């Protein structure tokens, strides 16, 4: 039997790697990939708590399905924004996109 804490530590590790990627990556697409890692870590937590709580109550899995829809919307809008910025400014480096920087 696998203890619940193992799943939580795995999800925490994936989330923290995603945090590092968001903070350190230069490319906007690299940042988007790190955000996908963080969303995946959150879904692992939802499924693990569903399994170790009351498995007959499927709210954890229903929540995970909705998070999948959110992740798909996130990826499509994010890539559309990056392609639009690339077309106008010929860069995908997050530091160079400073039009709104105060």
């Amino acid at each position, binding site marked *: 039997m696998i203890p619940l804490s193992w799943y*939580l*530590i795995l999800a925490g590790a*994936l*989330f923290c790697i995603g945090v590092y990627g968001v903070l350190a990556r230069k490319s906007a697409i*690299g940042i988007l990939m790190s955000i996908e*890692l963080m969303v995946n870590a959150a879904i692992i937590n939802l*499924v693990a708590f569903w*399994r*170790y709580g009351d498995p*007959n109550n499927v709210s954890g899995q229903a929540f995970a399905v909705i998070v999948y829809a959110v992740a798909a919307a996130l990826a499509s809008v994010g890539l559309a924004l990056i392609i639009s910025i690339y077309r106008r400014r010929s860069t995908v480096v997050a530091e160079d996109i400073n039009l709104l920087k105060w």
Partner: protein
Amino acid sequence: MTAMQILFLGVGIAAVLSAMLVVTVRNLIHAALWLVVTLFSVAITFVLLDAGFLATVQVVLYIGAIAILIIFGIMLTRRVMMSDVGPQVNASWWLGALLSILLFATVTWVVLQMDWPSLPTTDLSMTLNELGHSLVDPDKYVLPFELASIMLIVALIGAIAIAWPGKESQ
């Protein structure tokens, strides 16, 4: 150590190592391919958690759709990043590394402090039926489910509107 635990450790180590490669490797195409490895390892953890439906959705939706979309995005913008000189990380990467290590240490400490419940031995054969019913049951999750679908279609139309070539690019 049972076989399940050894399998989980292998999958978990594969997921963490490939996730580290996703955020550190220089070539973005390679990073996207390592992201596929991570997502597949997460799908295997879903199988270990008896959530076969979500494992399928993970493979079909994440690997089949989102990872491919990201690879398309890299290829459409690769001219700048492939010939890029200098490192792939910004100047304050060490601050991000410090912050994420601190965050991980805190999360691990809190998780190990708690006394978690052990695995319940319930019959899981009807879970998928129940999930399907609950997503269309007015007393349960039909409203969030429909809202999620409306949000998805709004986001997709918005993505088309944003990425549509404007007058200035013609």
